[in-house]
């Protein structure tokens, strides 16, 4: 058995300043058809990550066919003019490749991950899926049914249910942003092969698109891209204007889940995007409030009170505008007190940000960057975000420089201009029979019980 007194460590070590760091600089080239190729050569990263970013906002979807962008993207790898569904899947997986996608309000992203030695074969298939997909009736119909089932799963999941209810309220009623990116049931159900084929015909093309490649790239990468994407024609391609989001009217809602043992909440409002002059300030402020493990919110609601496994506050920027929210799952019995305390903590009137808090936030952001962007997929993801939000190649370097200029006063000014704790939208998924009254007593007098299917 060890003696408790035998343990006598030296003084706590200091941290040496990290060295300088920059996000990698890409090489850029543009094919004759207009496709821009953005390549990041990262030696030692043997799995190449490619992201094709299409400048197709969700505003491109006809109102009655919302979800068609998602259904189209999800069916791209289900057969092409050259290969059947099964053949295509076999070829792609024989090449060791993974195909993925991301549909956001600002644009579409098609993603390929593949070991570098198999890049040629995989890029060939990737181009085939994007440029000449079959989008056949049976496959589209199946993807529609699978999306409808997925909506059922999402509504049954409390954190997703709260998020769905939150976006319906935080964005102006009746606008695209208030509805799920992947489409709501009524319009998804209306999507058919003709709709998907028209959407592809009208909106998929090389003009305005960017192919991002990151990893240990072969010397031949430019000619490979030219070979596989050079024939892609943009003759039919229609440009679509981006429409910024608008804020909704404040509400407090409960999505009723009978018997739920926790209440999942989203509590927040309308925010800003990365080009707003307050972005660095609000990044620091929200890290202090709900980003760090020992943030003001998590430090109290988890570490002092044990009300939750974790609570966080985050700003979610869009290409233009954005949202922010406090989110977490709290046991049913304490939801009223948890929200009361959260609202008090969110007020900085009597608890200003301190210089130490600001310094910790800034050094955190600076310190995590080298590792976060050390891998091919880390770089490609960030480059795609920058492409979708129309940010410069040195965006992260500029951001880190701006973070260093943040003061407690500037963080507080940005925070108070955006966060009024008494005017936030609340969406809770939980047992309304048990939580409605505590929420009313917690000064959410206007609480309404809603049904996501309504």
């Amino acid at each position, binding site marked *: 058995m*060890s003696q408790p007194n035998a343990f006598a*460590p030296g003084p706590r070590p200091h941290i040496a300043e990290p060295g300088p760091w920059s996000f990698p600089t890409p090489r850029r080239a543009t094919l004759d058809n207009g496709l821009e190729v953005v390549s990041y050569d990262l030696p030692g990263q043997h799995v190449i990550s490619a992201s094709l970013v299409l400048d197709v906002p969700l505003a491109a979807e006809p109102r009655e066919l919302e979800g068609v962008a998602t259904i189209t993207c999800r069916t791209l790898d289900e057969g092409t003019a050259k290969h059947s569904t099964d053949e295509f899947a076999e070829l792609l997986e024989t090449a060791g490749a993974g195909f993925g996608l991301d549909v956001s309000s600002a644009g579409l992203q098609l993603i390929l991950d593949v*070991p570098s030695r198999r890049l040629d074969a995989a890029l060939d298939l990737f181009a085939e899926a994007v440029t000449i997909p079959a989008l056949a009736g049976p496959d589209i119909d199946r993807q529609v049914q699978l999306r409808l089932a997925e909506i*059922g799963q999402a509504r049954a999941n*409390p954190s997703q249910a709260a998020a769905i209810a939150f976006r319906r309220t935080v964005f102006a009623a009746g606008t695209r942003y208030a509805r799920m990116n992947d489409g709501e049931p009524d319009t998804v159900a209306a999507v058919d092969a003709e709709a998907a084929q028209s959407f592809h015909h009208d909106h998929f093309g090389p003009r305005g698109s960017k192919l991002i490649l990151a990893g240990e790239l072969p010397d031949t990468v430019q000619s490979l891209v030219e070979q596989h994407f050079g024939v892609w024609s943009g003759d039919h391609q229609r440009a679509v204007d981006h429409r910024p989001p608008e804020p909704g009217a404040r509400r407090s809602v409960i999505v009723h889940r009978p018997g739920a*043992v926790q209440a999942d909440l989203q509590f927040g409002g309308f925010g800003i995007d990365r080009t707003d002059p307050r972005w660095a300030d609000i990044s620091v402020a929200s890290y202090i409030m709900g980003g760090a493990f020992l943030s003001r919110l998590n430090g109290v609601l988890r570490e002092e009170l044990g009300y939750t496994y974790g609570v966080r506050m985050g700003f979610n920027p869009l290409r233009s505008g954005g949202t922010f929210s406090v989110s977490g799952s709290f046991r049913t019995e304490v939801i009223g007190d948890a929200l009361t305390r959260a609202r008090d903590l969110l007020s900085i009137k009597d608890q200003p940000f301190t210089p130490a808090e600001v310094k910790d936030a800034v050094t955190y952001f600076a310190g995590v960057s080298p590792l976060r962007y050390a891998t091919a997929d880390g770089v490609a993801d960030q480059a795609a975000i920058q492409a979708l939000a129309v940010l410069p190649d040195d965006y992260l370097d500029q951001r880190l420089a701006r973070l260093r200029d943040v003061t407690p006063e500037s963080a507080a000014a940005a925070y108070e201009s955006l966060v009024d704790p008494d005017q936030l939208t609340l969406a809770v998924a939980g047992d309304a029979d048990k939580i409605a009254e505590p929420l009313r007593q917690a000064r959410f007098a206007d609480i309404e019980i809603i049904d996501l299917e309504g």
Partner: protein
Amino acid sequence: MTSASLDYPVAEHVLDNGLRVIASPDHATGSVAVNLWYDVGSRHEEEGRTGFAHLFEHLMFQGSANVKSSEHFALLQPAGATVNATTWFDRTNYFEALPAGGLDLALWLEADRMGSLLAALTAENFENQREVVKEEKRQRYDNVPYGDVMERILDQVFPTGHPYRHTVIGSMDDLNAAGVEDAREFFRRFYMPNNAVLSIVGDVDPETAFAKAAQYFDIVPAADRPEKLITDPLPPLTGLPRIETTQDVPSEAVYLTWRLPADRAPGFDALDLGFGVLGQGQSSRLIKSLVRGREIAESAYASAMGLVGGNSLGMVGARARAGTTPEELEDALLSEIDRLADEPPTSAEVERAKAQTERHWMQELARIDSRADQLSGFATLYDDPQLINTRFAEVEAITPEEVSAAVAEWFTPERRASLIYRKEGR
């Protein structure tokens, strides 16, 4: 086809107190990953104390002799660190990745809690973290559809008293019954340098890494190491165990499970590829036939979960499309499993499964933090950290014939357990 050859450097050194230290330099990012595996997981828990390894992991962040409660995070995050810990059936790991200038602080903090956790453990922080863990259980398991799948599966596959019979999160009753004395006892029993592996990967040379490890950990005394837990392998299941449950779930679902050989035991890799052929990827048989072909499933998968304690766990699952009954879905899954014998996996199918494994493995090793975790794991479980370079070659050497032989021995319909989720009547 030849795979990319892996050649990550691996250097080892054992401190006098028995702490095994592994260093693997990588100067690309100026960052360093510190990773500690303790050879204790939920399989080491005793009856009536399930969930304890994981609850204990939380307590490791509540301070030690020279560190205040939660100060571990408070010191490391401003240094730009990602910090966390996880508990699994076979181990508990603690890790931080940060700019290399923070290496000394990370090691000092890990040594302080390894050497002096009990000096700071109080009834108050024990109570607080018990509540946090109960919220974690509610959030991840009790309050989501199908959240009890794993609990029910383990109950079917492993006999009473078996180390894998219970989940890592444990039972609410056991969490409620635990006391701070149990925590002290747990620490004394499992947390000691000679029951741990420390990996240091990144912008530091092995000699420096070893010197720093010695500087901070040498003062932690060795203690009586718990005996290695050896669990005898069980034969495949018999008697077709079956559970049906009716719940408020969005879709009816079927989960079929098998006992498999332990991770890396003969047959396991072949079975892992067999499960891949059956149910991983768009070209797998289940996706082809149930999701795309017959359109009776909204999703389907097959996977082998490697465990070291005698047996691993094989799982095949699917959610039913509207209009398909769980019985029809189960029959369809079983006929695909039968077909693995009637139409054995082809070399093309096995190559595809290997190609997917290879990509995931390369992506895992691309990050210094996950590379450090793999080094600690291979050293802890197999006494061989060099496996990070050679493990994939073991998988690549498997032939389709070996896949068929292992499937015939372990992975047949009569050796399964079935778990059926029905929707509550509306």
